[in-house]
């Protein structure tokens, strides 16, 4: 069992390594992708600088907390899209029969297919998160918590992407539903939760789990809360288990295809 986990981990790390090797063939494009993503994200902070020059408090967040929110949103997105890029095009893999080559390998199909490609620009998001963290004032505990919540957040948004993509096993193409759901998570996670009231707020803290990926981490990094940290860990584990179960249930309905396919 342990050896199996070790081997699986080894292959997943190798897949990411080979993904990087592939992308690094085009050195200039690789570096430019990362740099431009950092610059693109930086432009949004300017808007917040303007807003905070007019107002001291937005939705109960100080400017430093907004920086933290942006940092965690960017690095969560970066982690997930960099390592699990294909989770965001799972619908295409399923409906066009592209899972065959993963199914004949003696490894976990879900992990193998979602890690088979990396998104270089997401490395820019990831780095941007840490740059903003430094600007907002970094401490050792903040760095550890930030890294930890970036990982749990990345796992949660990847789980959601896989769940929405897995709908394709039952309803055919689900790419539009998945794209809408994934974008919803990202868009909401860059605004302070205090500006949302009533049903919208409840939704964000439950069905659309932006609370788990962005708001709670900012609250915890501002003032440590063990209970909330525990809730994030438990929900991450449960959601991941549910994701694997749903994906493997769906896999029984997989019908492959005879399309000419190449692995890029």
């Amino acid at each position: 069992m342990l050896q199996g986990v070790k081997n699986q981990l080894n292959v997943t790390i190798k897949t990411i390594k080979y993904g990087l090797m592939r992308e690094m063939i085009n050195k200039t494009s690789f570096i430019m992708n990362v740099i431009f993503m950092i610059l693109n994200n930086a432009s949004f902070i300017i808007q917040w600088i303007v807003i905070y020059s007019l107002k001291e408090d937005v939705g109960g967040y100080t400017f430093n907390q907004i920086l933290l929110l942006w940092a965690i949103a960017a690095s969560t997105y970066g982690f997930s899209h960099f390592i699990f890029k294909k989770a965001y095009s799972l619908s295409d893999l399923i409906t066009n029969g592209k899972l065959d080559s993963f199914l004949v390998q003696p490894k976990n199909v879900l992990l193998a297919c979602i890690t088979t490609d990396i998104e270089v620009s997401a490395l820019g998001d990831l780095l941007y998160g840490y740059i903003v963290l430094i600007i907002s004032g970094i401490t050792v505990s903040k760095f550890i918590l930030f890294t930890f919540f970036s990982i749990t957040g990345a796992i949660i948004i990847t789980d959601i992407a896989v769940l929405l993509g897995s709908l394709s096993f039952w309803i055919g193409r689900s790419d539009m539903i998945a794209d809408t759901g994934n974008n919803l998570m990202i868009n909401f996670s860059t605004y302070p939760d205090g500006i949302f009231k009533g049903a919208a707020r409840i939704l964000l803290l439950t069905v659309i789990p932006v609370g788990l990926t962005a708001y709670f981490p900012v609250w915890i990094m501002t003032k440590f809360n063990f209970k909330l940290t525990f809730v994030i860990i438990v929900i991450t584990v449960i959601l991941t288990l549910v994701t694997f179960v749903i994906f493997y249930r769906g896999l029984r309905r997989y019908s492959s295809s005879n399309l000419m396919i190449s692995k890029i």
Partner: protein
Amino acid sequence: MSVISVKHLTKTFKIKEKKKGFSGSISAIFKPIYKEVKAVNDISFEVEEGEIIAFIGPNGAGKSTTIKMLTGILYPDSGEINVLGINPTRERKKLAYEIGTVFGQKEQLWMHLTAYDNFKFFGAIYDITEKETEKRIEELSKLFDLEKFINIPVRNLSLGQRIRCEIVASLIHKPKILFLDEPTIGLDPVVKESIRKLIKKMNKEYRTTIFLTSHDISDIEKLCKRVVIINDGKIVMDDSMSNLKYHYMDKKVIEVKLNTKVNFSNTKGINILKEKENRLRIEIDTKQTDLTTVLKLINPENIMDINISNIPLEEIIAQIYRKG
């Protein structure tokens, strides 16, 4: 010893049907119509260790669906599959260590990496140590003559070189059975011939059982001793290659150039395939009329040129497809 055993295997696909045009698309939203297609319909067969078996049939006959069920890609609706004592549905991962697959239409290699890096990655997938992988790459690159292009990115290789690399990648873990789904698709005759030689060599050296599907009759004729023909999801023939040819030996094709025309209308067992001026192509059923009678009827002095041959295997198989 049987390495593959299939009993009463069935697989049905539910396909959405749509009426013509835009109005058809609208009605399909509110009232979808589904059609059930039996891709594989109650088939049973066994494959012995070390055999090279051809599993052939026309497009849509159920070949790929069967291979996909044997390799654990698809779940069957009913029936039993046993590959090397393993049930592919329940123990997909365990089976993957024992089998290799090459899908001519689906690449398994990463196009931007070199063949060597791809092989190293496949070694890791099958939990083979670095040292062992290196040894295996060296051995296989000699056997498949890859030394000249092993360090070139796969996207820059010719189709023939790429297919050779695909086969090597599927052999890294020393599989006991290799599933080849149209491995020579799109290749030129010279490369096809070299791939066939390599498959034969591999079968001889490692005693790998080979399960082959191909539309290229030469692949089947040159590689396989046994042929299973599937049509409309059912096995219509399971026989040795020699038997297949023997059963159709009673039919001959004569191509002849004559001085004067001959009338065959009163002779049984003769089918005129083509007639143009003084050239004639006829098929003779020797069970009904022997060759001597036909030659006498033509009259040897009337013959300017003649060629007598067996029916090509391609034609034999096409006839079986049509009957099926």
